[in-house]
């Protein structure tokens, strides 16, 4: 029986799903069905509506129109319980685990009636042990989830679904937080599950994974289902084109000689926040006129490095030098005074203040230095500055008095970009600058960063997207568990080789050699 034969008895059918958030149409009349033992890949850019669609299927949102059928039964909308009871299990992109509870507690949560007199701990643990053996999901049921690694947490998420006898598994960007090697282990588990008759919806924007695991590919673009292909009949190139809907024009990175070293980290260590690793004896030099790409699986010390450069954190040991001068006193304001421009990872919560208007957000970093005298603010000048930014950086908005939370992600990012570039920074930290942006905004941001490079700025580009790193960077470092790989010049490393560094291989030899 081939995959397409199996697809003839759908276990899941979505019909004409439409969902709007205000003016944004996140899902526009989407329909598809899933067969027994089938793996469908839901492919699309960030913001294409994949997660929204799956949240509707799982009952976390209710659709404005359309319905979901599981095993022929219509699913009550807006109720995860109904989806769970019907045999749908979802592994969210952001894990839904309680860190202070143990693995088994997280798994059994909600599986017994709340009126039940006691937790059936022993039976639960036995069942978990059985499942983890069968599906190669090694994890200690008595461990506190807060102490687990990201890979282990994902296993707990999958076990949660299997424990409930899920027949349909939805995995939302499951590999975003995994090394290539961990991803392979995940695929092995999934194949096991398919063999036992489970069906899988796999959400991703990584083409090679989609090609490796799925039977069928559905492509979402701007909330609409634009294409459906049998995986066997399609190619990398075709899917890429379908996904973005037009040729991707990345800016030209013409070779140019590196400029002076503008920032130097020598054997810098720093503390991470919460469970995130800190930096371990990191040595890094940023040259003017270069884009330095930092590749790595998220949560491997990118946050610590970014905090350090933005002035939020001090090295706990080692030295930070800017333009040849050792830094002893460090804060965001001092970083700005040293002409470091910062594009933060989270533009909604770190980069902007949601209820502030565009003027206030535009001068958030410079109100004291450029728009005030003796503590008195010059709002007229600030407003003029905001208007200029809106013009120059093509920020689409009703005007400078609009609250920034009303802007789209792309326009918000353009304002931040303008705020940074207008100060003519010598060093630019760009942490995930295009995540979640549409292709137009993405190209715009990349082009502007490339221009800044040509004008002699040192750019540090942090991204989880290896393609983005490889396209834009003059040199590439890989970060893993807070350690930094040596610098690799443009074009000298294949993605697979970088992947091995991302998984933490190679560091031991370096440590040995030094």
């Amino acid at each position, binding site marked *: 029986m081939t995959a397409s034969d199996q697809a003839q008895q759908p276990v899941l059918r979505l019909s004409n799903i439409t969902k709007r958030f*205000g003016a944004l149409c996140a899902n526009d009349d989407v329909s598809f069905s899933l067969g027994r033992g089938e793996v469908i890949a839901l492919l699309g850019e960030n913001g294409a509506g994949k997660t929204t669609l799956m949240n509707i299927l799982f009952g976390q*949102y*209710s659709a404005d129109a359309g319905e979901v059928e599981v095993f022929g039964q219509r699913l009550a*909308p*807006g109720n995860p319980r109904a989806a769970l009871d019907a045999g749908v299990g979802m592994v969210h992109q952001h894990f839904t685990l309680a860190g202070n509870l143990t693995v088994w507690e997280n798994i059994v949560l909600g599986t017994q009636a709340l009126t039940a007199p006691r937790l059936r701990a022993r039976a639960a643990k036995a069942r978990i042990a059985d499942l983890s053996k069968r599906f190669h999901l090694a994890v200690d049921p008595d461990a506190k989830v807060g102490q687990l690694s990201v890979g282990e947490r994902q296993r707990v998420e999958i076990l949660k679904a299997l424990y409930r006898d899920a027949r349909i598994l939805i995995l939302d960007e499951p590999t975003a937080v995994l090394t290539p090697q961990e991803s392979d282990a995940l695929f092995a588990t999934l194949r096991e599950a398919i063999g036992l008759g489970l069906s899988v919806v796999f959400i991703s924007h990584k083409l090679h994974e989609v090609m490796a695991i799925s039977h069928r590919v559905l492509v979402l673009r701007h909330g609409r289902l634009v294409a459906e292909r049998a995986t066997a009949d399609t190619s990398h190139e075709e899917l890429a084109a379908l996904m973005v809907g037009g040729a991707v024009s990345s800016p030209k990175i013409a070779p140019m000689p590196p400029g002076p070293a503008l920032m130097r980290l020598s054997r810098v260590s720093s503390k991470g926040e919460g469970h995130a690793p800190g930096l371990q004896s990191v040595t890094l030099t940023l040259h003017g006129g270069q884009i330095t790409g930092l590749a790595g699986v998220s949560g491997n010390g990118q946050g610590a490095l970014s905090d350090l450069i*933005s*002035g*939020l954190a001090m090295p706990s040991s080692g030295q930070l030098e800017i333009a040849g001068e050792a830094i002893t006193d460090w*804060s*965001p*304001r001092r*970083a*700005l005074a040293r002409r470091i421009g*910062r594009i*933060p990872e989270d533009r909604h*919560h*770190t*980069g*902007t*203040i*949601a*209820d*502030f208007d565009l003027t*206030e957000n535009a001068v*958030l*970093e410079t*109100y*004291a230095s450029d728009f*005030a005298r003796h*503590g*008195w*603010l010059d*709002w007229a000048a600030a407003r003029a500055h905001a208007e200029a930014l809106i013009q120059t950086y093509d920020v689409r908005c009703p005007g400078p008095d609009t609250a920034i*939370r*009303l802007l789209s992600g792309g326009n918000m990012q353009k304002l931040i970009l303008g705020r940074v570039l207008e100060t003519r920074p010598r060093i630019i930290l760009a942490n995930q600058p295009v995540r979640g942006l549409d292709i137009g905004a993405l190209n715009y941001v990349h082009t502007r960063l490339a221009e800044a490079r040509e004008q002699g700025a040192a750019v540090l580009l942090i991204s989880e997207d290896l393609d983005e790193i490889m396209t834009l960077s003059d040199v590439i470092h890989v970060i893993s568990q807070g350690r930094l790989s040596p610098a690799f010049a443009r074009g000298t490393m294949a993605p697979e080789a970088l992947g091995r560094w991302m998984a933490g291989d190679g560091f031991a030899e370096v440590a040995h050699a030094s």
Partner: protein
Amino acid sequence: MRLEPIANPGLMRRLAPPALAIAGSFLVASLLALIAGGNPFAVFGAILKGAAGSKFALLETLNRATPLIFTGLAVAVAFRARLWNIGAEAQLYAGAVVTVMLGTGALHWPSLPLLVVIGVASMLAGALLLLIPALLKTRFGVDEVVTTLLFNFIFLLFVSYLLEGPLKDPMGMGWPKSARLISEARLPRIIEGLRLHWGFVLALVSALVLWVINTRTTLGFEMRAVGQNAEAARFAGIPVTRVILKTALLSGGLAALAGFSEVAGLKGSLTLDLSPGYGYTGIVVAMLALLHPLGVVVAALFVAAIFVGADAMSRALGVPSYLADIMLASALLMMVLAILLSKFRVVRD
């Protein structure tokens, strides 16, 4: 149910919350008045008459509003920066204690410089008193709501000790009461013969000054940024800890002025019942004013009118004057709910 943000709330939606909250609190009070056997119309008529029915009543309302403007401003400036100062009561007494310490004969200066020094010293005392919880918050992450609340009890006991010990009036016939201020340390009346002192003007000026600080200065901008999103503020280079401490100084100082104005303007000496909870009522005033300094003046006048009117009403009709406290507490709760509903709509899913 689910809450969905409203993109551009219209003027009506923004102005409706205070009106609805006040209307709602009147409704609650009417029901309770009925239960107590009073006719709501008679009750509110009596409240209105008691608050504004005569020149005397009106002046009483203005006098009662004065400390409420100060504590309302203190709470408003703190809450705007998300510093939950529930300790205005203690800071008020700190100002009062300093006023008594300096104003009962320790300094023999002409009136104006003496009042300025006492006022400034009071503010310092209140500021320092709030600085402790603020430092505990910034240094140790201790929730300032609980610490400022606990400080109210501690400081009131301290005042009780002072009034039975070092500050006790030797001529007070054993009552826990301070000596009277010397005449140079008294805030004069605005118009001779009318029972309204310059503390009221000082309160109005304070509101204006705070309004200017909020809208025109870097500090005002920083305080709002820290309150709205401390993480983004820190990232943008705003010295968050320092802003919180400055806010604490400002807030504590404003609350202390209430104590200064009450002792120097109205009472002339310090007793343990100087404030019938002005510090706590300041929270209601600030919330009803949507944390706007000029709104605080209006809200304080309203709240004072309710209190003064309720006292008179209670004497006339026998409905307990705690009706006023209930009205204000319910207005506070309805206000926050109404503000929410002006920004979000409730959607069923």
